[in-house]
């Protein structure tokens, strides 16, 4: 009975899959609620005595706040109170976002509302609380703030020049963090190389546009001394700790509830000054305060990402073997590193991930992370991956072109061999097991390369320019404490699940990972139903409440399935074992001879039905007197899981993009897109495919459309959905998704993450496709987004 379960013993072997919920495309439980408008988002929660906050946001990229006159605002009907930075500083402590393991990193103290200086256009400066949001906005309009505009530091290239404005004089300069990884002898490799090619890439600053804006409702109950926060967040437990610490409370006095969330993409895993301000105002006022970011303020205050300029060189020998990469990355992160994950991680990831899919010996990569007076940047879906993949795959294609080697052959010659694992990459990333060659082989089964090349040649004769591009990638998932915990951040890498059986035989699972609309609750239900042995419909999953769910990290870095799923599986198995002990006593059978199948206790050998779980529940909960006195009967089990052998479970994959470039207009038409990825055990193929598709769309969005554009004064120009272009279905290509499955051995479940693979590879595949199309015209683009203007410029047309 107490033998350690193995994937085979719990029915996860290939042969079992048809009979298992794990590996099946079953619909997720919360879908009807979401599509019928019966979800409960933070804004749907309306407690009595609720007041609403609106913020006056800085109209300048950099300005001193000389005075705030709130007299007129206080006269506006409905306005209850006005808070300045100084008011909030009385109840709320500032924070500094650095991590100890990022050596030399620095950032300035940040208050929920600044005390004397605004450092980006859109920074919240004064809060008005009123009995409706409209009245609060009327109040904001009536505020009189005297500003002294200061010169703004906007350019990432000149950020460290001696005559540049230093945003935080106490820091001495505008450098947040720099790191160089070096391995082998880079100089010698370049000196001896057959060919060296180089290019400079830009990844455009963009943001994650969530359907539901950031939302928070904080309520301080003075009678209890408790703070209850309804929050559209990815990480309720982390936020519980943050609110407690900043508001000088015990963690136990803070409860964070996160019901339905309309998308997050990394946007909602950070500490936002306006949200902390709401919690502080609730505490100061002793009543519920709500804030829902509207689209305008989302664009200026949600974190941005990917504002990088990367210079890269690659050295190859005559056979196309990669000898070395030499990469210099520079990124601007806004005026503050964002708490608590910090804004140095993206650059750090670029250093960790460049060259990732390839077997080569010499590596140098530096990231330089600088401050600027723009919206703060931080982790957004596929942190650093699309940047590293763009540089790597852009350089690999350039090298292939220089040598006259087909891009597929170039990759075949350089991808890490499938039997080379465990493998440590030059920047020190440890790979447990990847499948680059299997993924490439699978991709080539899906992409009709010969037909495409024939069509390409045919079309070129007619002046139609089509291109095919590839991008291999790796993706970091299932992070251990090596990501944040070792740096001192109270960010949990472990996660827990509690699974219990109620009297009617139904199962309730409580998990520390969270549902953002991506289907976490759906896969947890499948895992628990499989683990206990009940029909799917009998399982109810509860997430997003720090008071009831086991402590966990929530949703980030593709960990929900791999970490939260494993905790759920282990607690489900433990519950099953406990149920069988009780069943054995009731049926006078050895627990090992019994099993649970679709909610029935059965004989393991014959599958003969012995008793429904509801009968077992009836006896345990209402007639416990009939059971042996010393029989353990706790039909609830909790397990926590953390990875221990590898800092991260890396996944891999490869994408292909087939496009047509209108060389007259510079418009790119996406014809078709393919992705093969290896996320280990696939729990729900439909959800994984849609994660990959959604990820591809988000990657294509950043590469083609999405761009946070600033003017020379540091004003964000793209603050509506008409100016900030998100990818829309009409322009998206047909996407074909394939899988290779290399389960991680760190868990029973074997699942790794799948949420970021699409985003990691799509921009690079698209860039290589566009450049393949433009090759006969000797044009090339390396600056994202690949707008018509940039393509026409590359063609020399304008």
């Amino acid at each position: 009975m107490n033998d350690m379960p193995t994937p085979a013993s719990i029915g996860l072997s290939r042969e079992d899959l048809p009979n298992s919920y794990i590996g099946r495309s079953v619909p997720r439980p919360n879908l009807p609620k979401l599509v019928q408008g019966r979800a409960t988002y933070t804004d749907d929660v309306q407690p009595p005595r609720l007041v609403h906050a609106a913020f006056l946001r800085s109209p300048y990229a950099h300005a001193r706040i000389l005075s705030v006159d709130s007299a007129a605002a206080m006269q506006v009907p409905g306005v209850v109170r006005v808070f300045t930075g100084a008011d909030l500083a009385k109840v709320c402590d500032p924070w500094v976002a650095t991590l100890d393991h990022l050596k030399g990193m620095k950032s300035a103290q940040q208050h929920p509302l600044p005390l004397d200086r605004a450092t980006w256009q859109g920074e919240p400066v004064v809060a008005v609380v009123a009995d409706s949001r409209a009245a609060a906005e009327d109040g904001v309009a009536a505020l009189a703030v005297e500003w002294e505009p200061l010169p703004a530091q906007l350019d990432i290239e000149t950020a460290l020049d001696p005559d540049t404005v230093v945003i935080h004089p106490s820091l001495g300069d505008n450098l947040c963090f720099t790191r160089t990884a070096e391995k082998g002898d880079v100089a010698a490799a370049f000196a001896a190389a057959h060919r060296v090619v180089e290019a400079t890439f830009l990844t455009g600053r963009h943001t994650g546009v969530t359907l539901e804006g950031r939302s928070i409702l904080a309520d301080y109950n003075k009678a209890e001394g408790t703070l209850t926060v309804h929050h559209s967040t990815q990480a309720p437990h982390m936020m519980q700790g943050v609110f407690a610490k900043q508001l000088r409370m015990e963690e136990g006095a803070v409860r964070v509830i996160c019901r339905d969330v309309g998308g997050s993409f990394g946007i909602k895993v950070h500490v936002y000054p306006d949200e902390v301000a709401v919690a502080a105002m609730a505490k100061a006022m002793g009543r519920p305060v709500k804030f829902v970011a509207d689209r305008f303020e989302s664009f200026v205050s949600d974190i941005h990402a990917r504002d990088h300029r990367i210079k890269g060189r690659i050295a190859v020998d005559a056979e196309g073997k990669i000898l070395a990469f030499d990469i210099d990355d520079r990124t601007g992160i806004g005026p503050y590193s964002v708490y608590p994950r910090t804004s140095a991680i993206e650059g750090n990831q670029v250093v960790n991930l460049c060259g990732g899919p390839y077997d080569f010996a010499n590596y140098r990569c530096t990231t330089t992370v600088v401050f600027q007076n723009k919206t703060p940047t931080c982790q957004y879906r596929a942190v650093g991956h699309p940047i590293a993949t763009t540089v790597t795959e852009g350089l690999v294609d350039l090298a292939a072109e220089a040598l006259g080697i087909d891009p597929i052959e170039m990759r075949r010659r350089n991808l890490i061999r499938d039997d080379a694992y465990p493998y440590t990459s030059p920047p020190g990333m440890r790979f447990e097991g990847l499948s680059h060659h299997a993924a490439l082989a699978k991709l080539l089964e899906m992409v009709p390369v010969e037909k495409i090349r024939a069509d390409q040649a045919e079309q070129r004769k007619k002046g139609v320019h089509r291109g095919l591009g590839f991008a291999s990638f790796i993706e970091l998932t299932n992070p251990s404490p090596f990501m944040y915990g070792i740096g001192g951040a109270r960010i949990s890498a472990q996660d827990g699940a509690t699974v219990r059986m109620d009297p009617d035989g139904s199962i309730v699972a409580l998990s520390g990972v969270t549902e953002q609309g991506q289907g976490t609750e759906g896969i947890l239900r499948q895992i628990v139903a499989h683990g206990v042995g009940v029909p799917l419909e009998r399982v109810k999953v509860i997430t997003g409440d720090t008071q009831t769910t086991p402590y966990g990290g929530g949703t980030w870095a593709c960990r929900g399935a791999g970490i939260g799923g494993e905790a759920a599986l282990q607690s489900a198995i433990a519950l099953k074992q406990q149920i069988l002990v009780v069943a054995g006593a009731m049926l006078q059978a050895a627990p090992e001879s019994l099993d649970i199948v679709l909610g029935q206790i059965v004989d393991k050998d014959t599958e003969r039905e012995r008793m429904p779980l509801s009968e077992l529940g009836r006896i345990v909960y209402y007639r416990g007197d009939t059971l042996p006195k010393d029989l353990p009967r706790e039909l609830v089990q909790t397990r926590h899981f953390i990875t221990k052998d590898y800092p991260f479970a890396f996944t891999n994959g490869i994408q292909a993009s087939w496009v047509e470039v209108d060389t007259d207009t510079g418009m790119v038409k996406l014809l078709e897109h393919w992705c093969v990825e290896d996320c280990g055990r696939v729990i729900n193929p439909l959800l994984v495919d849609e994660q990959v598709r959604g990820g591809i769309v988000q990657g294509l969005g950043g590469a083609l459309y999405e761009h946070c554009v600033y003017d020379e004064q540091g004003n964000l120009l793209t603050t509506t959905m008409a100016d900030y272009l998100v990818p829309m279905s009409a322009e998206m290509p047909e996407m074909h998704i394939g899988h290779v499955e290399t389960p991680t051995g760190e868990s029973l479940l074997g699942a790794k993450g799948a949420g970021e693979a699409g985003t990691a590879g799509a921009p690079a595949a698209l860039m290589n496709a566009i450049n393949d199309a433009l090759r006969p015209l000797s044009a090339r683009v390396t600056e994202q987004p690949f707008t018509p203007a940039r393509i026409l410029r590359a063609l020399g047309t304008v």
Partner: protein
Amino acid sequence: MKWPAFGYARASTLEEVFRLQAEHGDDARLLAGGQTLLATLAFRLSEPKLLVDITGVAALRGIALQGGLLRIGALTRHAELGRDPLVAQHAPLLTEAVPFIAHPAIRNRGTIGGSLAYADPAAELPACIVALDSTMVLASAAGERRVAAGDFFTGLLETALRPGELIAAVEVPVATDASRSAIVEVARRSGDYAMAGLATTLRLEGGVIRAPRLVYFGVGNGPVLAARANAALEGRSLDAAAIAAARAALAGDLDPQADLHGPPEMKRHLAGVLTQRALSRFLPAAEAAA
């Protein structure tokens, strides 16, 4: 952001509209489909005290053929315009234009009167109305007056509408056998306002171009009737050389501003490409193939 507080009145006759306008003056704004107005109110760009909903005014509705002209009521929704058989027959340019305007949900509400009154320089309908050499029918308490579409658009988001006046309808000359029309544009995504667009009409009489009206949008302060390009085409037989001449002449017609999409040179270039694409559709070979 939330709308500022405002009053709302639903008018059912023109007289009622004029009375409310007289009473409230500048504080009143007409509300048609609301697809532009309500968005700009949420930006708090203006704070009118009263919205006068005109969608219940029957006199502003309907599409009819009257005295050789197609009269299109101001309240005609984009979606109605797109599926109306009279429009398809007599002003096919408008039918062709509708799918370029925004998305179905917006086309179900937005009206031609609202689009022409707002006069967005990148909007399709103002350019089409000018290309069709239509006449605006404007109504006020003082009665009706008619203004040529070409004179109606006076500047960036500016028209010849006077205070207390509204657009009642547009009158479009009906197409003949010789009429040709086309609308082409380059937009970043389907449904977006165009980076550059061209609505054009002309007559082909024995292969010779008559009365060409090339009207560009998204490249100026309003619809731009390209006088030099039109002159370059007038009376010529339509062939590659004529098209090239129009493209060359266009340089003097356009003075585009840079915007988020790109510099003026790009807009000029795109206008040239669109000229090529639109006019090529009328080449005999293209017509035979169609």
